[in-house]
């Protein structure tokens, strides 16, 4: 009898470990597929153009808006809703900003503040309708999508409005200044010395901070008697991340250094990672998405939280609107159209649950990068725009299929 119990206990432990491994596999499977398509495009593009510093820089700048908005969309979807209006908010905020700068001659820092406020206000208005008036989010934001696309066109009268001051443009296309400019002697130095040392150093510092922080957190958890993963796995995992981060920083240092938008993006990713995993607000959003009735009966203010997710989404869409306008150096009537689909697709490729209650920031970021790398790679190899859409659609279906399949198998 006791051997039976021991055998069961051993089987149970093995199965728990198997489950842990499986959970990890799902997350790292996603990262692995991202690395695979990077490798794929590295191999098939001429002169490995896909990983050239110029292209990587472009890739980051082109896709920053998707990553920024996907962070907000994650919270919306986890809370059990959807926001279809974000593309139109991008266009509308760009139009407001462009008009204020070009026609009203407002200083651009003030315009940035106004634009963020406008985005947040639009999100808040839709949030009121969803959270308090109990209208389905799909319908509210479908309305918003039409309204703000139309207002954008009306405001711009079909025109491009621009150009913008240099400072404003730098949100999307500026780089961190480099103090290690060797000036006149630069030409006499070997090529490797002429890179952007500040960018490389910053990348290395972030990698080191993550590595040390990860191990410190692990040790504290162990001291507190929590269940922890094996140290070897942790170190291995963090080393891979560190290598990737330093690799990207080095790559960018070869060109113009770290784009400002990458710094903004990195800060936002860290912030939302923190909100979703460590804060009371974050936990409550997941609870609300998991079971709204049980959450409400546990004292969670469900309406207020749903409202917050929409206001937050509007704010991030406003930021994305500024980035898009700054990048194009003009406000255009069609700016942002179709973005909502990229953003939502990024969330689902990243394994966010369509029924709410589950989803991870890092996976959504990887989902967004996945879409970005594919867009970029397919353009480099000259695949037609229509085929690109077909491929993206297939990838979305495949990613969600794998997710659903794994979940069903348990």
């Amino acid at each position, binding site marked *: 009898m006791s051997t039976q119990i021991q055998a069961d206990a051993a089987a149970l432990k093995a199965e728990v470990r198997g489950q842990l491994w499986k959970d990890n596999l799902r997350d790292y499977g996603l990262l692995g597929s991202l690395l695979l398509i990077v490798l794929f495009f590295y191999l098939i593009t001429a002169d490995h153009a896909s990983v050239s510093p110029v292209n990587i820089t472009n890739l980051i700048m082109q896709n920053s808006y998707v990553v920024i908005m996907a962070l907000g969309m994650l919270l919306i979807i986890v809370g059990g809703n959807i926001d279809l209006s974000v593309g139109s908010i991008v266009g509308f905020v760009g139009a407001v900003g462009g008009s204020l700068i070009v026609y009203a001659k407002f200083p651009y820092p003030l315009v940035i503040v106004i634009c963020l406020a406008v985005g947040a206000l639009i999100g808040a208005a839709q949030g009121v309708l969803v959270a308090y008036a109990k209208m389905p989010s799909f319908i509210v934001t479908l309305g918003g999508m039409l309204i703000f696309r139309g207002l954008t066109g009306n405001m711009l009268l079909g025109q491009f409005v621009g150009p913008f001051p240099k400072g404003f443009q730098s949100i999307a296309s500026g780089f961190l200044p480099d103090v290690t400019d060797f000036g006149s002697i630069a030409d006499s130095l070997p090529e490797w010395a002429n890179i952007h040392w500040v960018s490389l150093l910053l990348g290395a510092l972030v990698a080191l901070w993550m590595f040390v922080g990860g191990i410190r957190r692990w040790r504290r*958890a162990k001291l507190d008697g929590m269940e922890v993963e094996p140290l070897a796995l942790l170190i291995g995992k963090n080393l891979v991340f560190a290598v990737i981060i330093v690799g990207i920083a080095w790559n960018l240092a070869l060109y113009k250094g770290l784009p400002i938008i990458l710094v903004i993006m990195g800060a936002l990713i860290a912030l939302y990672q923190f909100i979703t995993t460590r804060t009371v607000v974050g936990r*409550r959003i997941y609870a609300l998405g998991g079971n709204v009735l049980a959450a409400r009966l546990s*004292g969670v203010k469900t309406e207020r939280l749903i409202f917050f997710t929409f206001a937050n989404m509007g704010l991030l869409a406003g930021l994305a609107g500024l980035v898009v306008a700054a990048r194009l150096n003009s406000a255009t009537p069609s700016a942002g159209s179709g973005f909502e689909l990229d953003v939502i697709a990024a969330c689902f490729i990243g394994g966010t649950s369509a029924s709410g209650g589950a989803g991870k920031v890092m996976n959504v970021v990887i989902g967004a990068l996945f879409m970005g790398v594919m867009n970029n790679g397919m353009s480099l190899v000259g695949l037609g725009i229509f085929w690109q859409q077909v491929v993206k659609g297939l990838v979305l279906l495949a990613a969600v299929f794998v997710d659903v399949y794994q979940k069903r198998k348990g």
Partner: protein
Amino acid sequence: MPAILEMKGITKRFPGVVALRDVNLAVEEGEIHAICGENGAGKSTLMKVLSGVYPYGSYEGEIWYKGEPRRFHRIADSEHLGIIIIHQELALAPQLSIAENMFLGNEPARNGVIDWNESFRRSRELMKTVGLKESPNTLITNIGVGKQQLVEIAKALSKKVKLLILDEPTASLNEADSAALLNLLLEFKKQGMTSIMISHKLNELARVADSITVIRDGSTVETIDCRAGQVSESRIIRSMVGREMTERYPPRASTIGEELFSIRDWRVEHPQHAGRAVVKDVSLHVRRGEVVGIAGLMGAGRTELAMSVFGRAYGRNITGAATLEGKAVKLDTIDDAIDAGLAYVTEDRKTLGLILNEDIKHNITLARLEGVADGGVINEAREEQVATRFRTALRIRSSSIHQRTLDLSGGNQQKVVLSKWLFTEPKVLMLDEPTRGIDVGAKFEIYTLINDLAAQGKGVIVISSEMPELLGICDRIYVMNEGRFVDEMPAKEASQEKIMASIMRQYAGAFQ
């Protein structure tokens, strides 16, 4: 009589658990075979193996049906042979009619076009067989649970059922509906049908079962033949829990203090139908250290009363006064109620009590996240300590505090919900059907917990449809009917007959 069904050496594993280990079950043709066991013993799992919900290959062992080995890959395979299972949670589409539900997936049709006349004719016949007096056009949402159960049985009959399996068929039925259902089963037996019935209600089993198979911790303990003579309830319980349980309720030594919480002239209207009062002028009080019961039939308004008190979670136009520790208390929102020191453990733990996809830890801390957070940031170590403390104290059986609550048995899920509310350190607990669908052993643990809470000076209000339970654990009992409190009595002077009499007296009065 030959065996119609034999399950031999069934073993079924889930991640982290062996749910069934070498289970054997033999059911004779034409009998009513009961399966009982504690929650999580594996009864429902066994039935899911039988019906093909868990397909052939996902378990070990053999199923023999009508003398042949069978491999069911899906539910349709077993239904094809006349094995029909009616689950605890009824599988009816609420917005469709009785007739539509009865033939759902099996519609009488010609070339894909439904023959409504045929469908109505046959549904009328079947409804007559099960004694359901309704129009086939009535929507499921407009009939009570008892009648819904009959629709399920009629649906099973329409599929030419040979072996009917009922999982806790009377769990949510009142006494009259339960009795009618059991009579129906006996009627079917006369016509030669075989049934398997899973139930916790031992008095019902003793009444209808021909044999009882007891399952404990995933293994068969024994099969008791009831035809040989009367089988006592304590005999079954002993077999289920593996020990002598002389007492179903822990001894209660109450020390009752001053009044803790009260409501006066509480009136609640239906949330959709303004003006229709669901709770009418109810006054209630509970003292420190006191366990107060609210008895009544289904639909008496007990849940509505509790939820309306708990921060107006139910109803509209709520009027009345509430006092806590002698002072008027504001209970306008659920937050107010929790802050004031009220806790409400819901009747329906799956849809109202738990976030099923989240683990034990996250569920326990949900109602008081501030208790494990510093300035809005969760302290994970402290959260784990809290969860571990409750897991140990309430003996929640699980692989760890990181196990999803979806995968826990009913009793353990209930303990997680209780932990969540205990962590809010309430002064007054309202427990709505705290032991519904829970096995005898876990029930005893929950009763003991209620005693402990009362001993700490808390006030406990228990709503229950099982009168013996109220008589066993309460100090004082209110009787509620049709939205009113119709009687109040000390538990010592109360009896099932007395409670029923107070309910019936009100009806008698209504007909004068």
